[in-house]
């Protein structure tokens, strides 16, 4: 169990130390005198957990541990998961004259957000017009 906990703690430290800029900038590609370097943003994470609990007898009492046999079985469990996400951000274009950064726009995401915004505004406009043209209540 101690080894497993140590492994968890080691992976935590490793994740922190391995964060490298080189993962964000791709290999330069030269085509017709222009060199293109793809640039992305990335995010990754993980979560893990492990635990042990003493073996209980049928009455719910904790069983006595035999000092001479430390290998007595215990209830153990562990689990974990992780994920990674990468998204293209821009392209660095290097020519003989200059270095330029061309942003990459996720048009699908922007279009979806724009459609949702349009629906949101239409809803609010309808609500505002209803309030303006509805007859006022008198006390």
């Amino acid at each position, binding site marked *: 169990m101690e080894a497993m906990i140590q492994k968890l703690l080691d992976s935590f430290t490793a994740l922190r130390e391995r964060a490298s*800029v080189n993962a*964000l900038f791709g290999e330069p590609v030269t085509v017709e005198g222009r060199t293109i370097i793809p640039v992305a943003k990335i995010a990754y994470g993980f979560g*893990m957990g492990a635990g*042990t609990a*003493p073996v209980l007898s049928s009455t719910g009492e904790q069983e006595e541990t035999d000092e001479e046999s430390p290998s007595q079985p215990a209830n153990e469990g562990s689990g974990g998961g992780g994920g990674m996400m990468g998204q293209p951000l821009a392209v660095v274009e290097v020519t003989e004259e200059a*270095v330029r950064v061309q942003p990459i726009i996720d048009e699908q995401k922007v279009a979806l957000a724009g459609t949702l915004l349009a629906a949101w505004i239409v809803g609010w406009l309808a609500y*505002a017009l209803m309030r303006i043209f509805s007859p*006022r209540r008198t006390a």
Partner: protein
Amino acid sequence: MNTVITGDPIRVGERELLPLAQVTFSGRRRVSLTGRGTMAQVWAVARLRPIAIVERGDQGERRISIRDETARLLSGLLLAAILIPLLLEVAVRLYRRE
């Protein structure tokens, strides 16, 4: 934790490009040892975002920013989604006051 880190220089012809990125790291590790058992939890999330590229050449150094245009557009749309209902509400109140 937020830090800016520098990558390996990329050489393109006469130029040297030095990538810069911002690393946002958050995580937690917890170990508890009690009489009733042992428990360990670890979680960590790291975000790496390129922020600029430094061009080094014969004419000196030049920093070129790398912006997340998608995030900028989405932030603008979100701001509009908050501001437009507020403006409509103000307009309705002003109209009804008259």
